[in-house]
């Protein structure tokens, strides 16, 4: 990423992180943003890191980045079916519409469900706070 951002102006070529657990590191080396699955559940927290960083509040951005990294692990290791299940569960979507198209297997292990819930919710308090102040 660094090589690219050094070689090309953002008006010509932009590099974006594919995950948000290195959003700030990516921004610090000239990246212009990220495309992150975490945003399906905690969009405001992702935008907040972006805003804090660009407002020069680096420490606050960094602190939120750590929390986000914990949450991101849940999405990354949970897979797409895990992500759909946990997003559906926490946003109150129909239980009948949380599976991937077959043959992607279902996310039906009670143990895994508990794990992903606990893992991703690291960001929940921050998201709620941001929603209230919006």
């Amino acid at each position, binding site marked *: 990423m660094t090589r690219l951002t050094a070689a090309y102006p953002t008006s010509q070529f932009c590099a974006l992180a594919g995950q948000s657990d290195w959003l700030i590191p990516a921004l610090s080396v000239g990246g212009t943003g990220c495309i992150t699955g975490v945003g399906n559940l905690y969009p405001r927290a992702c935008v907040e890191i972006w805003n804090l960083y660009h407002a020069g509040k680096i420490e606050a951005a960094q602190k939120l980045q750590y929390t986000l990294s914990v949450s991101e692990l849940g999405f990354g290791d949970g897979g797409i079916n895990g992500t759909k299940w946990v997003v559906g569960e926490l946003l109150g979507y129909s239980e009948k519409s949380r*599976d991937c198209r077959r043959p992607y297997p279902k996310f039906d292990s009670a143990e895994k469900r508990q794990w992903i819930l606990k893992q991703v919710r690291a960001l929940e308090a921050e998201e709620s706070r941001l929603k209230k102040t919006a």
Partner: protein
Amino acid sequence: MPSNENGVSASNGSSSQYSYPPGIHVPSLTFFNDSKRQEIDWDTQNKHLTFLIQSGVHGIVLAGTNGEAMPMTRQEKCDLVQATRKIATEQDKPNFPITVGTSGISTRDVIDDCVAVKEAAADYALVLVPSFFHFAMTKEAICDFFEEVADESPIPVLIYNFPGVVSGLNVDSTMLDRLAKHKNIVGVKVGLFGIPNVGSMLTSSSSSLAVASPK
């Protein structure tokens, strides 16, 4: 030339500060119902798109990996684009950036994807390397592929580098250096080639954010 709410040009105009809208883009999930054919559950889908756009994110990516692009038809992708554009417009964000993943297994199929989603009002195409014939895909062949798609696509191309889903085919930094010169290639989504887990590697007391790129 239309600009979105961030003041970013919707195409690769030289006057714009950014070739692709900066910020947080969410790869929206696609929700399917439990019928035998697992059709898109539009009730849930529209609810989710509304939630995302209302939250203030800078853009949405439809039919990415999270959005299950591969098992979807081209028509379904176009329907998703139209639904997203409609919801964004209702929320007074008519120029909300919409990027759509391509999933063709041939160059012509990928180009057809780009043309179709443009007609449905998408702004950018997120293009993955076709990998069925991965054993034949040299670096040269991969670069030629992206350049031909970019030549023909009516919307700017964002390179999607994700070796994990394309049999290990990597678009390395030397290849990106070549591709970045194409006027219709506006950027890259860097998968894991960047600096994963770096957040957990830094201590909370660290004030320096300078991080070396691994490549």
